[in-house]
């Protein structure tokens, strides 16, 4: 009987030793706090509206979001349900971009994820709607790229493909892996 108690005791000590590793941990306490600082947003906002202007004083883009978290050290801002309006040229109707989440980086790139919808407010425009699950928009260069499946539709056509890039200024767009385009009413 004694031997069982000894082995249980040894087993208990072993578990205690491997689990805690307190005697190995030489780092001081503060470094943990420093790591957590990274993960704390510098400021939060809800139901926020931001307007950004370019050097010529023209409205470049505006963002509305249900809530927003800005992480200075990490260099990005997270948006929930962002609604972006991108103004390409003064005499042109803007593009409206909506998604579940958005991440805006300091170099003015925004990545939008889940139910991304891009709608041209220009009723004469060739592209009317773009839907995808992910898109990255360069707000300075006014270009968009996606490596996911995408559906583009216009007045009398619908295009489906995988991977897409578009230049909002020159209005050129390209699908590398085109699947199908339908002209006329889609059944």
């Amino acid at each position, binding site marked *: 009987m004694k031997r069982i108690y000894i082995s249980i005791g040894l087993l208990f000590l072993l578990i205690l030793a491997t689990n805690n590793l307190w005697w190995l941990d030489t780092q001081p306490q503060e470094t943990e706090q420093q790591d957590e600082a990274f993960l704390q947003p510098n400021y939060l906002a809800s139901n926020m509206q931001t307007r950004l202007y370019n050097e010529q004083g023209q409205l470049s883009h505006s963002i509305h979001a249900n809530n927003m978290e800005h992480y200075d050290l990490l260099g990005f801002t997270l948006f929930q349900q962002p609604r972006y309006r991108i103004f390409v040229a003064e005499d042109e109707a803007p593009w409206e971009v909506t998604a579940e989440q958005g991440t805006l980086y300091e170099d003015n790139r925004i990545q939008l994820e889940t139910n991304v919808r891009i709608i041209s407010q220009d009723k004469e425009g*060739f592209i009317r709607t773009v839907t995808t699950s992910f898109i990255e928009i360069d707000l300075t260069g006014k270009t968009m790229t996606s490596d996911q499946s995408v559906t583009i539709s216009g007045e009398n056509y619908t295009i489906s493909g995988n991977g897409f890039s578009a230049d909002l200024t020159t209005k*050129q767009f*390209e699908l590398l892996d085109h699947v199908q385009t*339908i*002209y006329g009413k889609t059944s």
Partner: protein
Amino acid sequence: VNQDFDQPIKIKSEYQTADGIKKVSVFRENVNITQGSLEINADELEVDAGKGKGQETFIAKGTPASYEQTMKDGSRIRAAAEYIEYRVEGRILTLTGNAELHQNNHSVRGSSIEFNMEKEQLMAQGTDDGDGRVMTIFQTESTVKKQKTQQDEEQQD
């Protein structure tokens, strides 16, 4: 009226690009266009949608590009040319560059052929040797039959 023209036009290809200002799209690599029984195969296709809805022009380019469609009498018309232009509104097919059109028992060849797909009528032809002569080959019933028996014999061997 041939029901084909009420159907949407479907285009498959590997690559696609478009110019939003000119409203022109270009499709490349294994381009296949279908609309009901109409089918065009080409290396490249340009679609000009500048005139608006339902007035697109499809210009297919190939070596050659080919066209097929089922006529009202059930027969299958076939054509081939370097360029096949399909004007959706007028339902007009214009073939240019070594153009040839095969309908029932006659074939037409020339540098350019224009064909009304709805009326199933040949509208104009041109030839590049300048003397206005156009090559139209009418295959009489008998020659068609003779060809058919030859084909049947070959199949039996």
